[in-house]
């Protein structure tokens, strides 16, 4: 959903802008445009921004059971959160998951796109193979990879013959395990399994983005470089890859918001994990709110997640607006 919105706004807004410049003042066209937009503005105002403010309001209340209690609690819920072992673990997990997930999706997507761009014979076949996982739901991916990476029955039956026996998502070790706050800080080994599943699913998306980017670079540019005596490797390094920068930017933003909000994959694949090695804020929020009925605490987690995503998205929105004008 959000990916598409991001792409659409990027394309649509310039058209509106040029129109605005031509006709200043409130013409009939602008009234009409406003009228067309009004329903969605009203709906957005209520169902997005209204509910965000409502969540913020709940997060500073004392609504800790099934019965609403809106007495003001200040930042107590947030304080409790940052002193909570599970939340600290969640922040660590989100950090490591996001970094590994985004870097791998960008690199693999780029590599595969360049590979497919080599005018292969079965290009469309490869493209489809890599794009297919994207059509699946994270829940399906999660269940399938849970089976594949089950330490007793999955891919380990093969690996056993090579004498390796990874524990995948049941591994509770954390490297390098520095003690910070209440938790051990480091990469939870169990997360590697989750990263594999997530990368498998989302690489197709980044491949498609990069492929579109590559196809948008006119052939003359490459030809000119070739005439100037550049090798194919130099063409990619010096000419093509620099032009793909905006795509990388978009891919990172889109992947970042997916990884920060990830819920379904974790929920279907591993759950919070022993010692919360694969827990994420989204899962914590769901369990606190809808299992534990601690609405105020759950709202506080949701607000923090919103802030984390906003840190990525707002600079992106600002810069894409600047790019247009």
């Amino acid at each position: 959903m959000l990916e598409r919105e991001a792409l659409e706004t990027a394309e649509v807004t310039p058209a509106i802008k040029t129109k605005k410049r031509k006709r200043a003042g409130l013409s009939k066209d602008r009234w009409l445009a406003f009228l067309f937009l009004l329903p969605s503005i009203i709906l957005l105002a209520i169902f997005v921004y209204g509910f965000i403010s409502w969540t913020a309001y709940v997060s500073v209340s004392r609504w800790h059971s099934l019965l609403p209690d809106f007495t003001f609690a200040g930042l107590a819920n947030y304080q409790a959160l940052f002193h909570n072992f599970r939340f600290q673990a969640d922040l660590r997990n989100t950090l490591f998951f996001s970094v590994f997930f985004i870097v791998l999706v960008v690199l693999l997507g780029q590599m595969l796109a360049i590979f497919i761009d080599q005018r292969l014979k079965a290009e469309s076949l490869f493209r489809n193979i890599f794009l297919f996982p994207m059509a699946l739901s994270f829940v399906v991916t999660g269940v399938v990879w849970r089976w594949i990476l089950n330490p007793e029955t999955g891919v380990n039956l093969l690996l056993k013959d090579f004498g390796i026996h990874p524990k995948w998502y049941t591994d509770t070790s954390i490297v390098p395990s520095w003690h910070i706050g209440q938790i051990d800080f480091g990469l939870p080994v169990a997360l590697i399994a989750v990263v594999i599943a997530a990368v498998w699913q989302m690489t197709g998306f980044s491949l498609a983005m990069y492929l579109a980017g590559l196809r948008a670079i006119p052939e003359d540019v490459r030809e000119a470089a070739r005439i100037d005596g550049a090798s194919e490797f130099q063409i990619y390094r010096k000419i093509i890859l620099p032009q793909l920068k905006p795509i990388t930017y978009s891919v990172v933003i889109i992947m970042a918001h997916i990884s920060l909000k990830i819920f379904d994959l974790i929920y279907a694949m591993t759950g919070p994990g022993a010692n919360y090695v694969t827990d994420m804020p989204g899962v914590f929020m769901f369990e606190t709110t809808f299992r534990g009925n601690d609405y105020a605490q759950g709202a506080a987690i949701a607000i923090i997640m919103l802030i984390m995503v906003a840190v990525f998205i707002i600079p992106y929105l600002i810069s894409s607006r600047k790019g247009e004008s």
Partner: protein
Amino acid sequence: MFKRLGMFAIAVLVLAAVLAGCSNSKSSGSGGSSSEKGKLEIFSWWTAGGEADGLKALIDDFHKKYPDIKIENEAVAGGAGSNAKAVLATRMQGGDPPSTFQVHGGAELLTWVKAGKMEALDSLYKKNGWDGKFPKDLIDMVSYNGKIYAVPVDIHRGNVLWYNKKIFEDNGLEPPKTFDDFFKVADKLKAKGITPLAIGDKDVWESTMVFENILLAKLGPDKYRQLWTGEVPFDDPAVKEAADIFKKMLNYVNADHSSLAWQDATQLVADGKAAMNIMGDWAKGYFTSKGLKYDQDYGAVVTPETDGMFMVITDTFGLPKGVSKPDQVKKFLTELGSVDGQDAFNPKKGSIPARTDTDVSKYDDYSKKAMEDFKSNSLTPSLAHGSAAPESFLTKVNQAVNIFVTQKNVANFIQALKDASSQLKQ
């Protein structure tokens, strides 16, 4: 110009349609529920397998007696009721309660009672002559300030140790009665390369169940109950002893326990890959569905040192305040509490009836034994299933258990339980 007018007209139409859509859905919402209020809405999370069959049998029986009352089966699927509970909370808070709803007896029910959302049912009990038909310990679980607030339908037992008969016979072992026995048996099995105890605690509550059974064994029923009222503190020596035993037990469990759900752990015992499993007696349904026979392929005993105690998980139904036809609901509750109703529902679900005077011949061998115990044993509420303490406390205990299972630090665990117990006083 004409074109522009046309556009304008379309815009107005679109806007009107959207506004109409909004107001329409709103009016149909309230209108719908007022027409639905003529129906009897039965809210539960019984959507699949024997549970759904049992509910259907119950509704059919009720329908025969009262063909005029329209019943709406409003079962919400998923996650051992977690989805249903979320929907229920929204409806209760919104002042639109279902006619009657499934809720675990104990703390889970009392949350609604304390909030003043439920009607007392003493007159219903009196009218039907139900006094003494349910065990007293059970009625205590659905009572508050001396008034009864719900009708228990079914009973599951939480303190059951399931074992693979073949493994035990092949190795000349007896199912353990004490923890000393347990560890002796476990050591022998481990030496043979068999996983002694299967746990599947992907959802954490499975481990919490193991721990609550040890707690019950070490504290005894009275002190165990007092734990949840705050009369016995969590740094009581017996709690620490229970934690130590739990810690020792964790040396004997399957390595991949955190990736398995409870069914997977039961499956390990069924397959002979593990010897024992501690789980509620819904595991019987799982064994049966795999074609295994009680007392031939698998056996069941109470968990160590809990003889004479019965960890109760009970589904109950009550009457929310503000429903439009309380008389119909009372008729349905009467059916639920009747011998007919309980015998229609429970054999299908695989649970035992909450009444003690039902027709024993309708139940299987395991249930017959459980029914006998249920009559005479001391009944205690399960923490892992929301009967002993509020959900907010349970969430914190689950968190402590999840950390403990990995870190195995008893002092931290006891401290976490103590910290969580502040939630009990709410």
